[in-house]
């Protein structure tokens, strides 16, 4: 392996590691706030990338219809759950927010999509379509089970993954898409070239991680999330709604998933089911980091990115095998050095 290859692989590691870091950090956040091991995180990546791809092509993305459909389901579920204590104003509010807003979004997208507004407006539109899916998913699937065991929530998460992947196939089709890069510029540094796109990815990741840090440390909303993560009961006792922290966590995770999708969409071809494996690699990192530390999760994500890049160079057929088995030594270490933990149903 010469220096050029080494640098190239290093650059590659950093890019994929950045994306895994974003996913790993949000997984740790969702887990600590809601106790959900959010396997479908990767689906938001797919949705983000494929929505942008459709908008770039001047088509109405399937997500616009999907959002309306999910909104209708959420409204029906909400009305059904409140059927014994439903006032007219609540019903109207539910219908306006869950069905009305997505319907307006759909109309807007149908109007502006053929105009091909350019990358930035299209990205904003993508986020506006994908991010609301996060709180909807929380409301439909997880909120009724919020006090269940981690295992039940995990199986529900797998159910959501199956549903979202299947819906991805319906709304985006089986073809793969690649979006255009933020920037086509390439810097020639003599021994290697650096694409501006890769700098964008790393910079965006860093910016998002810093933003998350400020959010958790400096804002009241961020502090409510931390409180809920430490103790759900304690948070409720001081007047924090754990339903609200759940929405917030899922909104953030959908947003960061979709942003990762926007970034990754130009680097590789994304199919309706690509997100699962990408998300699971984020999970490998989150587990390596112990599922309770943001910096460790982010650092582990860089390690996963590095292992992946270097194994795709030297043992490409076994790349995925290697990435998914690096979890084993960590689990082994944990099983040897931590006392057998308790689990109550």
């Amino acid at each position, binding site marked *: 392996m010469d220096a050029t290859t080494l640098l190239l692989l290093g650059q590659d590691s950093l890019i994929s590691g950045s994306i895994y870091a974003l996913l790993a950090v949000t997984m740790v956040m969702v887990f600590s706030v809601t106790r959900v091991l959010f396997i479908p995180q990767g689906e938001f990546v797919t949705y983000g990338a494929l929505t942008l791809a459709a908008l770039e092509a001047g088509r109405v993305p399937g997500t616009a219809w999907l959002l309306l459909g999910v909104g209708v389901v959420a409204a029906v579920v909400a009305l059904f759950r409140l059927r014994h204590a439903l006032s007219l104003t609540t019903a109207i509010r539910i219908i306006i927010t869950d069905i009305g807003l997505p319907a307006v979004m759909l109309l807007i997208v149908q109007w502006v999509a053929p105009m091909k507004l350019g990358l930035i407006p299209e990205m904003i539109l993508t986020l506006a379509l994908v991010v609301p899916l996060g709180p909807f998913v929380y409301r439909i699937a997880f909120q009724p089970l919020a006090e269940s065991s981690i295992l039940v929530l995990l199986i529900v998460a797998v159910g959501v993954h199956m549903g979202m992947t299947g819906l991805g196939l319906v709304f985006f089709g089986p073809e793969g898409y690649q979006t255009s890069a933020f920037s086509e510029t390439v810097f020639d540094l003599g021994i290697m070239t650096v694409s501006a796109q890769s700098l964008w990815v790393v910079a965006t990741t860093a910016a998002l991680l810093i933003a998350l840090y400020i959010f958790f440390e400096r804002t009241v909303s961020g502090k409510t999330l931390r409180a809920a993560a430490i103790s759900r009961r304690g948070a409720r006792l001081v007047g924090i709604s754990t339903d609200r922290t759940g929405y917030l966590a899922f909104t953030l995770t959908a947003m960061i998933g979709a942003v990762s999708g926007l970034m990754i969409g130009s680097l590789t071809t994304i199919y309706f089911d690509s997100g699962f494996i990408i998300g699971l690699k984020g999970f490998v990192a989150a587990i390596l980091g112990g599922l309770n530390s943001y910096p460790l999760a982010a650092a582990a994500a860089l390690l996963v990115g590095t292992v992946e890049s270097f194994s795709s160079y030297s043992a490409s057929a076994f790349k995925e095998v290697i990435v998914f088995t690096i979890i084993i030594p960590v689990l082994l270490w944990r*099983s040897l050095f931590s006392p057998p933990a308790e689990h109550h149903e």
Partner: protein
Amino acid sequence: MNPKHPGVVAVILILVILTIPLAPIPDYWISLLNNIGLFSLVAVGLVLLTGVGGMTSFGQAAFVGFGAYTTAVLSTTYGISPWLTLPIALVLTAAAALAIGSITVRLSGHYLPLGTMAWGLAFFYLFGNLEFLGAHDGINGIPPLRIGHHDLFDGRAFFPVVWLVVLAAMFLTTNLLHTRLGRAIRALRSGTIANEAFGIDTAQVKLIVFVYAAVLAGLSGWLYAHLQRSINPTAFGINIGIEYLLMAVVGGAGHVFGAVLGAGIVTILKDQLQDILPKLIGGQGSYETIVFGFMLVVILQSARNGLWPLIINAFPAGPEKLPVPSDDSLAQRAMPKSGAVPVLDVRGICKSFGGLVAVNDVTFLVGAKEIVGLIGPNGAGKSTTFNLVTGLLRATGGEVLFRGSRIDAMPARDIAALGIARTFQHVELAPEMSVLENVAIGAHIRGSAGLLAGMLRLDRAEEKCLLGEAARQLQRVGLGEYMHRPAGSLALGQLRILEIARALALDPALLLLDEPAAGLRHLEKRELAALLNKLRAEGMSILLVEHDVEFVMGLTDHLVVLDFGKLIAKGVPAEIRKNPIVLEAYLGGVV
């Protein structure tokens, strides 16, 4: 399900299985039924693993792959007869499960399922990239099974093989659940503390269940390979692994019959949806995953125990008249003699959690035929002292001797085997198991029957002794009439007494009771005191934590008083009652 004549039911089922291939059922449905049988095998394993044992696995498909690939390679490349590859396939699957399991089953809760997902994916990619396994194309031309001179070429001929195996697996698994080991497996879900305190090696029990489920999956894979006669990695991927779990959850993860029900529902639904959905939606694709995803979410939200319990509850059987086991032939321990070495000798034990010193240099003795009370205000370190003596916590200093030998470095289950039994301040029982079965957990270490004996019902004599002993202890503490109720249906005071019965079933020389009288009414307290006095007269030593001063004063020979982890007084009850330091600790120095 407890049919009156299991033999008759089995014969009928075997006859049905043998006649179905002769009936004019379309080939299409025969092959669907074959698939259901193959999936049922895996799902039965998952029922034991997930529904009963509380360990979730998304990776069973990989074990199916182990069984399938082993026989495929051996029977094509090396031309070995499929009947010879069967034991090899099962042993190899078991070995793989043992290796993976010993890494992952000790991890509780969510790490195990995440681990299964990771190795499920890793094996899928491994199968798809290894040349000698045919990489992505898989292996073709696998020979069919051969019985006598008949090759089982078509699904119709294969049908009896598949379903007789399924029937056998269900029979053996059901047997297993109603044995000594089965109780230990069923108690896993309710936590490991009580099990360890009664001598059960929970990590080993988990590993047995894990390997058992994997072997059933491997068996399914072996059958699959010889039924399809060609295999490729897609049948062993993570998505199929998730479908297996779906089957167990849909059918009812706690029921062996639920596994077959779930496998049937999911397989038929998948088959039908693959026809219908593409016509509705257009295009082609695996749209059934949407339905499966919703199904999983809805079932967990509204019918957590799956569909099987809903079905059996629709046909309520009359109240079952279960026999009261009576057998008292279980060997009993010789009780320590008074005057010799003390039964329990605690010498300067310490325990700190980080900076907090919970127990600090505590020393006391419990002699033979003595009842010693351990008292002190809340947070004094009483329960921690119990945990140190019973090995649930490791002391950071000091020594604990039981009948003259050191036990402070021993794991809880070995201490239990020496004859120390306990109850818990916060009740640690398995609520879904019957009162009798919970008590039988206490007698676990007095039996020895293992996996095979349980599956083949060779353990009946011993089982009769264990249950007889459990029944005897229940009658002794006055809970005999509740024997066959689920433990979760009893009141808190009764649960505490139930814990005492469980402790007595261990035949202890030393009994540790953590607040046994809490939640009892006056009359019940009197009965409890009478029982403890009787136990003492029979030679048992008792150490108890209790807040009811009247109860403690009337019953105990000595008192040990702790405050903030320190021993502040020792002596006979009458002295302690007047001790100014004790009064200050309890009443804050007002007196």
